[in-house]
């Protein structure tokens, strides 16, 4: 680097108005990029957190989501007592036939949204040790009781302990509130699976969650169940299933990426404009540097570097601006269940680095042509310019 960086830094400082204006454009783009990616990551992390690698999920063969799977009650009985399945202290197999249905609930403060109701077996909670009751008590099967996640309790009307809401053929009473932070369960209402089937007139379960004795038993069980043509099921580790669900973040990521690309084009043009102006204003300096013996390449690199530094200022501002949303909670529609999934924005160092890299790309794109113009100016013409 023949021409010192301080030359570029000071020029950026001297024309601070245009530097800031241009940097803000880049900052906005980087902030949008970082936020959307933080959103997608948060959503993905929520799905990934939800699945427990020790559990197996049984769905109908061909189903890619719990919501589209159906399993007859009689089939559950045919594998519920298999040896490979773990037993709890009472000697019951750790198997939870489950069903999910969508209901509409009123939000506190108006409007409504789809909420996912999960009917679980009596053992459903044992399979999910991370989910903890924090208020009230567990629902009692047969009494049309339910437990709701903390987020649902705080976001939806009639979802506090003791309150009731109508859904299906029943009026449900909220018996307790559970905490399932950072998992998709945080957006669910749980109650008894058989009551859900009855209230919503379903003759099938949707899926079965179970715990094999150990990993080896799990593998054996997967083979055994999938080999059984009559059962017609697909069995996979629960963690895998939720990993698959991360594709729900795809549309957001795509839209965000698209938006960021469009914005970046604008920001790169703004940077280009600024750099053209800088080259124009410093034409005689360029001539002088050339007379001193600096080569075209030195001039080129110097202006390109200046554009990149400018973009980095913007990138840093954008990253800073996006930081406050880290950990902020929000919700989005899941494309497989069509219910709302609550999750937190997640900004990581790696994501910030990507944001900065994105800014650098804008700087390079904005700087290439002006730097080329600067480098190509004939020395004498440059010297003669005012």
């Amino acid at each position, binding site marked *: 680097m023949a021409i010192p960086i301080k030359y570029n830094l000071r020029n950026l400082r001297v024309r601070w108005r245009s530097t800031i204006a241009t940097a803000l454009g880049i900052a906005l783009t980087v902030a949008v990029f970082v936020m959307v990616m933080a959103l997608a990551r948060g959503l993905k992390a929520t799905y990934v957190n939800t699945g427990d690698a020790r559990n197996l999920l049984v769905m109908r063969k061909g189903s890619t989501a719990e919501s589209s799977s159906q399993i007859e009650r009689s089939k559950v009985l045919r594998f519920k007592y298999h040896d490979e399945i773990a037993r709890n202290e009472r000697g019951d197999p750790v198997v939870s036939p489950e069903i999910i249905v969508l209901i509409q609930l009123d939000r506190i403060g108006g409007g409504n949204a789809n909420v996912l109701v999960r009917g679980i077996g009596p053992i459903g909670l044992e399979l999910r040790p991370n989910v903890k009751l924090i208020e009230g008590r567990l629902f009692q099967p047969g009494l049309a009781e339910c437990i709701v996640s903390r987020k649902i309790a705080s976001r939806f009307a009639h979802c506090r302990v003791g309150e009731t809401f109508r859904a299906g053929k029943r009026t449900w009473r909220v018996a307790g509130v559970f905490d399932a932070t950072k998992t998709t369960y945080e957006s669910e209402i749980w109650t008894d699976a058989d009551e859900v089937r009855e209230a919503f007139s379903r003759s099938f379960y949707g899926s079965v969650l179970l715990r094999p004795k150990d990993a080896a038993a799990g593998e054996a069980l997967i083979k055994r169940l999938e080999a059984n043509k009559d059962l017609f099921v697909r069995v996979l580790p629960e963690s895998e299933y939720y990993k698959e669900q991360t594709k729900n973040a795809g549309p957001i990521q795509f839209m965000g990426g698209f938006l960021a690309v469009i914005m970046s084009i604008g920001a790169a043009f703004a940077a280009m404009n600024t750099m053209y102006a800088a080259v124009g204003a410093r034409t005689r300096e360029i001539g002088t540097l050339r*007379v001193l013996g600096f080569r075209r390449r030195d001039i080129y690199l110097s202006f390109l570097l200046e554009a990149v530094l400018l973009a980095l200022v913007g990138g840093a501002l954008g990253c800073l601006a996006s930081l406050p949303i880290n950990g902020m909670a929000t919700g989005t529609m899941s494309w497989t269940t069509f219910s709302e999934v609550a999750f937190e924005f997640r900004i990581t160092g790696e994501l910030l680095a990507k944001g900065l890299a994105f800014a650098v790309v804008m700087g390079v794109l904005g700087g290439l042509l002006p730097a080329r113009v600067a480098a190509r100016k004939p020395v004498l013409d440059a010297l003669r310019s005012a």
Partner: protein
Amino acid sequence: MDQPIVQIRELSKVYQHGDIEVVALNGISLDIGRGEFVALMGPSGSGKSTLLHIIAGIDRPSNGRCVVEGTDVGDLSETELAAWRKQHVGFVFQTFNLIPVLTAFENVELPLLLTGLSARERRDHVEAALELVGLADRMRHLPRQLSGGQEQRVAIARALVTDPTLLVADEPTGNLDAHSAADVLALLQTLNRDAGKTVVMVTHDPKAAAHARRMVHLEKGELLNGG
């Protein structure tokens, strides 16, 4: 006398302006010896700057040769020319042309960044050069914090710092008041006389030219009385 440092033979420069050809220099032959202080004089448009630019390796002859210390400047590529300039030429501009965002010290240091000198060596050279032009106490000042005369002295320090073969100046006093002009001319004279620098200076001011040891008159692109 030694081999001349600059040998110009039958040098012409023609500018093409659409259909019109402007003959800026027409068959110039001129030798400049080591340690000379030459004033290039002549009316406006006579080709003084053009000749100086060719000697300094920032313009090329249309015809003829300009050999500086054995190198025909016209034979060099762009990149070679840039390298040649940094080694052989110190250029002083009428408008000083200091980099506004760099301090006096940093401006003088610029050409040294193209050499392999260490930061320490560079500092020593820069300080010596600024000392020589009498501005050692202004090293940390930006150009806008200096008077015109001081700016030009910094520019001279920048031209000197690499110890080039030739010091060339295009109307170095053109933008200065009489007092500052006298300072700058005295400085160039000192550099020539005491440091043995070869100086080529364009001017149309006879008082300025009087500081030189030799005057060369140009008119309409040709040398008067053979140089």
